[in-house]
């Protein structure tokens, strides 16, 4: 099979989540492609806009319903901007799924700690929804999310909805105060002191700026969470998604095929470095 082959998909639904953030529900045009497509939570697709280009975007929908592929896209630049202007009924291209996603199997029966930061965290949102749809299979869920300033908090309703699940805590932090901010003021790692955790039965999933993930991992390590049970979602320039273009390297790894979700004990020596 040609890994460069692109398949046409139609936008069945477009939802605006926040200014400049859209969720697209995509359906393959070709029935054979649609029925053969299977993915795991946390894998990504290369989404293609004709005449513009191709970018890596996580699949956020449920792997058990692989016919409808949801992608949440934040408009930041050249390709994502044109993508954001597409409407229901338009076609774009899909190549994928690629990479290794969240350890949703390994997490079964464990307490799940989710640490995120920055402007929305689409990749991990899919994993959280996955867990809540199978709530009884997992232990406690603690979601800790940090932003620079209150207005960077996107998906406020989503956090509120998650809070309603049993045995679930959602903790938010903002570096600076704001009028409507009645959560923690400070960095996300300070939230760790507010939660009770059983390090030996916990698994950690992180997504956000690399510095934040590094500090969080070190912090969790000090709390006694084993390094091999912390997972980080890595972001690098990706031209191919299949380990051939060389852009996504992190030390000996290719973020596209060895990641994007990578185990902390493996990636730790290369965090905060440029090669």
């Amino acid at each position, binding site marked *: 099979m040609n890994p460069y082959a692109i398949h046409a998909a139609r936008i069945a639904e477009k939802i605006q989540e926040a200014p400049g953030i859209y969720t697209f529900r995509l359906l393959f045009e070709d029935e054979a492609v649609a029925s053969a497509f299977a993915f795991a939570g946390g894998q990504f697709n290369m989404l293609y806009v004709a005449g513009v280009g191709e970018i890596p975007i996580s699949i956020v929908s449920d792997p058990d319903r692989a016919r409808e592929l949801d992608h949440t896209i934040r408009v930041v630049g050249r390709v994502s901007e044109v993508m954001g202007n597409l409407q229901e009924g338009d076609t774009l291209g899909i190549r994928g799924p690629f990479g290794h996603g969240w350890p949703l199997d390994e997490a079964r029966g464990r307490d799940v700690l989710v640490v995120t930061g920055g402007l929305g965290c689409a990749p991990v949102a899919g994993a959280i929804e996955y867990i809540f749809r199978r709530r009884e299979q997992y232990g406690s869920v603690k979601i800790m999310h940090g932003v620079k300033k209150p207005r960077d908090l996107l998906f406020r309703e989503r956090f509120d909805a998650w809070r309603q699940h049993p045995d679930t805590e959602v903790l938010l932090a903002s570096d600076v105060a704001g009028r409507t901010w009645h959560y923690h003021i400070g960095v996300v790692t300070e939230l760790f002191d507010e939660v009770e955790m059983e390090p030996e039965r916990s698994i950690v999933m992180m997504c956000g700026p690399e510095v934040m993930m590094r500090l969080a991992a070190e912090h969790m390590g000090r709390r006694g969470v084993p390094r091999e049970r912390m997972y980080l979602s890595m972001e690098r320039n990706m031209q191919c998604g299949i*380990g051939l273009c*060389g852009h996504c390297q992190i030390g000996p790894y290719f973020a596209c095929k060895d990641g994007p979700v990578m185990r902390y004990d493996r990636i730790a020596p290369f965090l905060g470095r440029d090669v």
Partner: protein
Amino acid sequence: MTDRCAFKLPRDRFDDLLQAIRQRNYLLLAPVERDGSVMWGEIEGSRELAWGKADSQAPGSYRLEAGHPERCFEVTHGPQSLKSLTFSPRQKLVHVRCGDDGLTFDSEAAESKPTAVIGVRACDLAALKMQERIFIEGEYADPYFKARREKLLLVAVNCTRAQPTCFCASMGTGPAAESGFDLVLTELEEGFLVAAGSRTGEEIIASLNLDAAGEPEQEEARQAVEACAASQTRSINTEQLPQAMYAAHDHPHWDDIASRCLSCANCTMVCPTCFCHAVEEVPTLSRDESERIRVWDSCFTPEHGYIHGKNMRPATRERYRMWLTHKLAAWIDQFGSSGCVGCGRCITWCPVGIDLTAEVAALLEKDA
């Protein structure tokens, strides 16, 4: 190199060999003089080869000079390796049609012409093997590389003359071509020694009715290749790799290199193993069609490490560090052996003569 069944190919029968290959419908590519160096050029016969020429390479310098008047392979290697023949510098990946009813895609790999490459060096064979590991033996096989590779016939030449920039002996890749070719030649005082490395090679030799080589010719060839290895002055101490390179990440010497390096990317372009590429979108003016084109890229470009809002490698120091650390350390973890085959092209074609062997030595010095 001498275990193979070798035959004598007199100089005046060299063309018979070339014609035997052409008769099998191969295009002949060989090193021919162009723009002051040698490049792969299409030839019809041996006359077009670089007879009587020899190259002289040094850090930041390449010149063609007069060589042995009756030899055509004294030009060791030009800026091109086999890389451009399999991993094309511009490769169309996908053709896109944008119609009223949506998008249609065609990603069929084009048929390429059977091509025989005459004069392939051991270092380039080692590099090709490495690129095969990357492009066709990994998790995802690249059909465009594969289509081109399958159409190549390789006629190697054992090196009997090394450049001051060559260090294949220390990387264990040359100067003798050990495998991965269809035919191998050794240029002697009187004609050539020829041996086969594949079934096709055997058939070609059989069609020529050559005499088996005697011990004197074999000995002459052996000695010439050994002398070539012994003449190499550069080397890389591979014993401490990859760990020592990773450990050198914060070495002050990177700043010293960065003060000289221009980030021009020449070294990665001439490198026979570098595989980085970007994919360009090339729409037609009317925008009803578009092409996805793969083009060579390099970790020395500002775009290579760019993600929105951040550049992983903002300056030359980090870019040179990426190149050397990938080549000599990460590569070993990724593909099982070093990304450097010792061809020395990056030394010759660096406009400021940066010599990776010297930089590695400085970086691996203990007390820095």
